[in-house]
């Protein structure tokens, strides 16, 4: 592209397409005929008919677009990044978090803080885990980096609060043990893609 094309200020004569809106009337007689045509044509009644049809559909076919928001909610995309959730293992009911600390490391707003220790089985256990939602920017890195799909983004988007600093504890985000059967497998942000198995390549060591 040469400089000439940028310097051309005469827009509209290049590759633009104009709609065919007819020619505006010039003489008095043309104006008069246009007015008469438009008056007699009944275009206004088409508009009336459209809204009446909408009203009848709304009344008798219940074709409403209103969502009574606090009582009804629209389904949101599974990729939506709202308040975090901590998932459990479906088999044992134990929490999935292995205390690796990757989410704490990757968090770019430093809102995740965790403390871990070894339990009696020499297994990592989470003793303290908080997320400061006043700082969290819901970037989703924690869910993406988590190797165990333990921390994920949920669907709870109503996060208005009276204070800027709103901490959430591990237990608050953890799936309640009695609702384990209701736990949805996370297929949203950072989740394994459906064709994950096909993408796995054997490492050279296996040859």
């Amino acid at each position: 592209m040469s400089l000439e094309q940028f310097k051309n200020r005469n827009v509209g004569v290049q590759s633009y397409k104009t709609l065919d809106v007819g020619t505006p009337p010039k003489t008095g007689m043309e104006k008069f005929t246009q007015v008469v045509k438009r008056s007699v044509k009944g275009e206004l009644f088409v508009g009336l008919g459209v809204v009446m049809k909408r009203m009848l559909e709304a009344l008798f076919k219940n074709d409403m677009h209103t969502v009574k928001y606090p009582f009804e909610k629209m389904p949101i995309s599974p990729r939506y990044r709202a308040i975090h959730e901590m998932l459990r293992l479906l088999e044992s009911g134990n929490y999935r978090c292995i205390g690796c600390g990757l989410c704490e490391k990757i968090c770019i707003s430093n809102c995740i803080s965790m403390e871990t220790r070894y339990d009696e089985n020499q297994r990592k256990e989470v003793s303290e885990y908080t997320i400061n939602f006043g700082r969290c920017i819901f970037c989703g890195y924690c869910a993406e980096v988590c190797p165990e799909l333990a921390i994920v983004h949920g669907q709870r988007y109503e996060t208005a609060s009276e204070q800027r600093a709103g901490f959430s504890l591990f237990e608050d985000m953890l799936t309640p043990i009695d609702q384990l059967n209701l736990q949805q497998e996370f297929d949203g942000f950072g989740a394994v893609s459906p064709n994950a198995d096909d993408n796995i390549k054997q490492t050279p060591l296996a040859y």
Partner: protein
Amino acid sequence: METTLIENLPEVGAVGVIIKAVLILAVISAIAGFGTFIERKVLAFMQRRLGPMHVGPYGLLQIAADGIKLFTKEDIIPQNANKFIFMVAPVITAATAFIALSSVPVFPDFTIPSWIPLLGDTFVPSIASDLNIGILFVLGMMAAGLYGPLLAGMSQANKWGIIGAARTAVQFLSYEVVTGLSILAPIMLVGSLSFVEFNNYQAGGISNWLIWQQPLAFVLFLIAGFAETNRTPFDLLEHEAEVVSGYATEYSGMRWGMFFIGEYANMITVSVIASVVFLGGYDVVGVYGWLFIIAKIAFFFFLMLWVRAAWPHVRPDQLMWLCWKVLMPLAVVNVLITAIVMMV
């Protein structure tokens, strides 16, 4: 006929007139309030919304909530406003609207049944005050109503108010001409300005309605009526997108509410005039005349809401063009043709 009435039945006296006036005031205020609910619902359905739903069943008590809000709001008067005129302007709108309603007929003449205490056997004529110049009086009152928006807009020391007031003067004065001229042709046919005469002229079925003789006058009157009542294709006085709220910009609380009630009362008045003058009034099919006129008035009221949902605004210059270059000549031609036909 009058003598027999006076001999047989007790006439409605001064007390009766006062009772009727209070009744009209109460009923029309209530209907105007209910009209806002209907308007919101109809517009909502036409836009596939639900409208008010939460106060009472289907939002029916929304009127009460709005009324409480309007009555208890602080009465704010701007600092630089002309206080007296600012306070009096809404009263003009509401008062003229209700005075106009005092001389339009709504029901046929009837006699209160004798089993009702105190008022039994009283003969009630159809209008609170049956003036022999009824139409002139009503049109005059509606024309006087222009002082409400005009003074309100000019007194409130607000630029949008001034624009609204200017538009009031331009629009209402222009469309008075069309209203008067369009209704002149039916007046010539009937030969009277009394609404009762109009009603009697069209007695005897749908084929006698004046709309068949004067279709053009009917359309012109309807268009002018929309402009006179400040309804949507012509609601330039308070067009939000252009002039914030026009003449009502600085108003709040009950003073704004009076403008509102006045507007809805005017809508009812125009509906009644259109029903009585062009659509045969209350005397269609014998006993159920009162039901039919209510249906007609309701239809015109609904038409105003319907049009509001469907049609866009016009520009002020289009409004003036329509009034002076289209409607007024058509009205004059209509009057001329009517006169020639009557002469021949």
